[in-house]
């Protein structure tokens, strides 16, 4: 029992958790035909339910985390996101199958029909609102909507967590300087989402589910939303404990847990570890490796890729669109890159100039 718990705990070690999630997404996409079977989701839910019945009974720490009134919606989120993602994938797989056989998509016929705003949309929405409000009231009565301790500026709660929907942003704060994690990256998320209609030149997949016609969009959505948003919400809720340390689901949230981290800037790696010399005095010289590699990342990589691997994409999108798109993608890629560098080689900053409050 204990070894099983510690095995599960070890699975949730951040690198494994993240890389495992990436691998899981890849696997689901690769074997999507298998995964979109009803039996799979049924098995998944049965196993999941069994787990959520078994685990809290056998572990006080796990029970404490998942039954905290604050956290119950996240447990619900877990099930609903999985279900709806699966449903979409299943629809796409079925459509793709049909298409292969030469038929029309599932929604093909329906797509030609029209429905009324009233009552088919607005009325149903209205009913949903009423029912959901009733549900919320009942729920808050039953769980006794939680109140926390009296606020005190001198003693913030530990861990001090953002609202659940911002836990993804809060997670980024671990890896980036606040101005990047709190301003630049959220800005790019918004601008990037706004730019999608202008960047997306693929006309397919309108009004019906399909995977094979839009593999990139699927991958991007799953990685961006499910991995980087939903899974960070789950991670932030269940796995981040006091002092924002990482805890396995069966681990006790010990305030005194130490993270043996000595994070080091890239400049230290470059000058001290590789060249075996002291750090240069001038910040610009000192941080030259970081500055150069970031410049290369943003300036060299797009044309290089455009000339080689993504030649077809440039042709389809045009140079301007391609470059804008690449920049969004590179900013996005910076996130897992930095996370992995932090977890694996304790990299603190790629460019670290605290003198100028400029850290990347």
């Amino acid at each position, binding site marked *: 029992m204990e070894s099983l718990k510690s095995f599960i705990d070890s699975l949730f070690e951040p690198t494994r958790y993240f890389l495992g999630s990436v691998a899981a997404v890849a696997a689901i996409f690769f074997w999507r035909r298998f995964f979109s079977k009803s039996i799979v989701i049924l098995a998944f839910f049965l196993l999941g339910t069994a787990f959520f019945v078994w685990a809290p009974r056998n572990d*006080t720490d796990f029970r404490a985390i998942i039954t905290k009134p604050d956290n119950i919606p996240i447990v619900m989120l877990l099930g609903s996101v999985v279900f709806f993602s699966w449903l979409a994938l299943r629809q796409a797989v079925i459509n793709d199958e049909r298409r292969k056989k030469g038929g029309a998509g599932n929604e093909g016929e329906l797509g030609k029909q029209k429905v*009324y705003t009233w*009552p088919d949309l607005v*009325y149903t929405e209205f009913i949903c609102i009423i029912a959901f409000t009733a549900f919320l009231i009942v729920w808050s009565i039953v769980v006794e909507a939680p109140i926390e301790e009296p606020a005190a500026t001198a003693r913030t709660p530990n861990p001090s967590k953002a609202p659940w929907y911002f836990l993804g942003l809060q997670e980024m704060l671990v890896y980036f300087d606040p101005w990047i994690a709190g301003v630049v990256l959220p800005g790019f998320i918004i601008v990037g989402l706004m730019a999608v209609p202008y960047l997306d030149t693929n006309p397919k997949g309108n009004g019906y589910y399909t995977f094979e016609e839009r593999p990139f969009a699927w991958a991007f959505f799953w990685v961006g939303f499910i991995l980087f948003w939903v899974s960070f919400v789950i991670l932030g809720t269940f796995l981040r404990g006091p002092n924002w340390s990482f805890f396995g689901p069966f681990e006790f949230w010990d305030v005194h847990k130490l993270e043996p981290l000595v994070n080091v800037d890239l400049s230290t790696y470059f000058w001290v570890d590789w060249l075996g010399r002291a750090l240069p005095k001038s910040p610009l010289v000192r941080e030259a490796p970081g500055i150069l590699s970031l410049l290369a990342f943003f300036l060299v990589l797009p044309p290089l890729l455009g000339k080689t691997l993504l030649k077809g994409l440039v042709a389809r999108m045009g140079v301007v669109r391609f470059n804008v798109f690449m920049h969004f993608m590179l900013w996005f890629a910076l996130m897992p890159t930095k996370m992995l560098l932090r977890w694996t080689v304790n990299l603190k900053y790629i460019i670290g100039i605290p003198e100028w409050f400029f850290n990347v």
Partner: protein
Amino acid sequence: MADRGDTHYRVRTLNRWFAWSSLALLVATFWMVIDDWSRPWKTYQKGFRALEVERARAELESPQARAALEEEARLSQELADAQGRFASSHSELEAAEKTLTELEHQGFIATEGEKKLKQQYNWERFVTEGYLIQRGEGQGYQAKLANLKAYEDRLAAASGVKQAADARVVEQKAKIAAMRSSISTIESELKASTRDIDLVRKKLASQAPEDAPTKIANVVRDFPGLDFIGPSLKVQKVMPPDLTFELNFTRKQRIDMCQTCHLAVDREGFEGETHPFRTHPRPDLFLSAKSPHPLNQLGCTICHRGSGESLDFQRADHRATDEEEGERWHEEYGWYKQHYWDYPMLSSRFVEASCVQCHKTSMDLIAPEAPEVAEGYRLFERYGCHACHKVDGFPTTRRPGPTLAKILQKTRPEFVQAWVTNPKSFRPTTWMPQVFHLENYASDVTVVASHYGLGREMKGDEWSDTAVAAVSAFVGSRSATEPLPPIPVQGDATRGREVFRLSGCLACHNMAPFTPEGRSEAKDPALQLRETNEHGPNLRGIASKVHPEWLYAWIRDPKAYWPQTRMPDLRLSDPDAADVVAYVFDDPDGIFHDVPEGWAEGKRPYERDVLEEQARWFFNRTLRSELDRLFREEWKSDEALLEAVGEKWVLNQGCHSCHEIPGLENAQPIGTELTTWGSKTIDKLDFGFLPEILAREHGWDHHRETEFKQYRENFLTWKLRNPRIYDREKIKNPTERLRMPWFDFTEDQIQAIATFVVGLVNDEVQHAKMIPSPEKAAMDKGLRVVRQKNCAACHVIEPGTIEFLDEDGHPHAVRGQFQLLDEEELLPPPMAGFSEYLADYESYMREDDPEFELEEVYAQLLEPVPGLGDVGTTFSIADVGSIRTKPAWGGDLVPVIADYYLRPGIRSDVEDQEGTLTGDGAGNVQDVDGQWRSFTEEVYEKIRWTYAPPVLIDEGSKLQRDWFYRFLLEPVPLREQIRVRMPTFDWAEGEAAAVADLFANRARLEWPKGYARKLLLALGKTPAEIAAEMASMRLNGSTESQIQGILDGKPVETAAGIANLVAYGGAQGFSMASAVSPQYETLPQRTPSHLDPYLAQMPDFYDEVHALIIQPGGPNCISCHFLAGDPPTNESPIAWAPDLAHTRERLRPNWIRDWLSDPARIYPGTTMPANFALDQEQWQGLYPAPASEQIEAVITWLFNLDRALIKN
């Protein structure tokens, strides 16, 4: 909406969905309102209401109520009769009432008319004035003025009409009242007789209404959603003014809503109920309006903590007394410790902690009411906690341990080493804690594992031994070493024993055997442990510790060695001191060389490499190369290295906090500041791995483990039990381990100290400016000094209390003492351990007479008790089994002294001791006068009053405060034959004055009680009778309960009623010496206005009284009293009494008045006879006047003795 048929969803279905979901929302909304409305406290309030109704109904069933109801029926009948009779004259009354109505009507019209005119007049006046100021005195003005005049006349006329109308109304009313008079008398009688039951009825009517409209109204008032208007069930709150708590850097007003459920806390009569309807204990002290802690001033949470604004069992942060209750709560209420509130409720075991926040400067004063926390405060000082742990406002900064500046003059380095290793191995009762060889440096602990590359593990034992060697080397290096001068006189051990026993050494020191078995076997009172003789260290084995020269110097002048010592100067002469030293070192009784088993004095082994390792740790900021050089050069000799490391150890372990060590006087103490420890949030306390360890040991679940960490008290209790426990299972480097030493506290001591420390909070009450009155502050300081100087070791300050049931089974609690059980006994039964004593006595008696049964015990009153008698009255207690005793406060030395005089040596533990004291071996003893006397010659009482330290009960009424103060500063011998010494204390500023003030204030506070009791005894009346008489004398507000309150010494009743009682007593011809004023008191006896009448009437006044005093046929005072240095004529020192010349400066005339008339009423058993008994004719041949005037004359003479003697 009609279904068009072309929509995706069918509208009918949607409508159904809409209807059901709306219904669900409606239900949810109602549920929300009801859920919000249904609160547990409402159930409690309903329950309490039911309880009150039940009580009211029971009250209406009581015999008194029945009697009142019968009376009511009778009167109602009478009223009906009277009304019937009155009905005959009905028409007349009706007419009169009609007239009255008419007249009142007219009066109303007249009044209104007058009002109207008055307004008009005022308006005209305003207009006229305005005209004058704007236009001047023209013609127009004259016209206006005339107009005004006219109004004035009309107003006067209207006033006349109104007055006349009013007068007619009054007249008519009187007429009607006269007609109705017979009825009104019965009506008012009825009202008076039913007042009490009417109250009950009214209460019933409001709590349990019987009429439907009120019932419905009550339901509606409390209905969900409507209960915001004026509900009958509502939250009760107290907002004590100025009491706040800290929240987010601001101070927030306390709002305590506890009373919402705890409905009867401030109401008497609910003592027997269960929570939450129980009355708060001790309503005389807490919550009632007349108590010092009224509810509306203090609320609840200031003392109990917890969350006062919460109305829910859980959120109020209730706290179980013990685990069992916690378990029960857990099952009943789903209780757990909510961790969101920083100030959890104090469990009842710790609730006294809250006294500290207000009473930090009056802890000694509140000791009788809050024994636990006061004990903690005393222990905190006694064990010197304050030396390491700073506490702002703690009344002392004295270092609790003796100075080490001259330690090598006192003892040997080998002793120091062995002592430092483990002080308790030499003296198990020492309050010096053990510092080394504790758990986190235990023998099996690896302290360092080759940290600096020495290549070997060092274990706790060698580490500690080396540390001890270093510390003692360092302490020795800082000590003065020049030898003390030799003892100038050759001492005599036998005489020394006498000096030792009789001078008072044993007041503060004991010589108790080390083991509990040995202690219980000790017959000699000098070897027994008492409350007070642990003030100084146990002297057993002392000769194995100190040098004789040091002991001699120390006894002669303790301050010379250690200026801060508590040991006073007994003013022993050189030979006396030398004798004591001889007694200690010759040790004929085998006490002073006795050491516990296993004690061995000697140097501890140490190892150079361990020492060097310690140096590396302590000097870790010194470069390694530099250290290596030091090891080779400066620290080449072990001595030098030991001293260098020793200093670091001393600073590390905090030896300097308690002991003065030259060079380290200003070093910082090592402990955490505790000033506001009780407010520290628990997340700042490092419990280490203790919760996990305890959980493992006791199989605690997760909740229990977390709960353990939620309470500060737990941290403290375990820390005091084992100060190093939080290092358990931790890996720490050798210099950062926990350092608090181990005191070996008992669980009771731990509880007490923890209670005190938990009470040290971020002092909110300072914000409310609650400070004790100057009298209270003075008394507190006095009590503190009395404790520190150990006055109670010699002097009885308060008599003991005897509780028993009398023949009728009524309980009594009186201050008194037991009488001898039979003639074989020498000492009266002790108050402490009385029942054990009786059991011993009975089993002893049954050896001869198996049938023996103790039938009664005699006791003597030490306070006047109405119904039993005055001071000195002996009474018998037949129900011996019912006796409970509370020992007297003080006088522990008295048995030791009395034992010496009564039967010298016989109780000594060494069999053949008899006769080795200054005795003749045949049961005779040589006294201070050199006379031999048989030890059975005198009774205990006489010995006690002659040779033992004086009793100080009510000393404040006896002594002039200023003389007392001077005496404390510089004692003068009062009784020449007494051998116990009043020591010369080294008083700090204000201390002696505080003691004198304490006694004066005590006398002032005790006086009303004594007055009331003596008054009752003198008049032979009960409080009820006196209250009735006082009421008839219009001494208003004097109720029976108030008089009872004065008799019981309750402050509130006393303050309210004593003046009336004294007025009553005066009217009854009762007189008693007036109360003590703690301020300056005048001596009228020395003033011309007092003296002149005597001298005018009797020119030879001084001679006359002198003759009365010294005549052998008269009172013959000088038979026992010294007179201005002349010894008494009686040669037996047992009767010697103080010099009369002291009287003028020493005693209060009021006290002498009572004393001369009946000394036994003040000191039962005193040898002073009642020379001037008020009810007897005596000495009229010598001084022709009644006894009371004789007393006045003697007092006048005594207070002018200087003048009288000059004249002679």
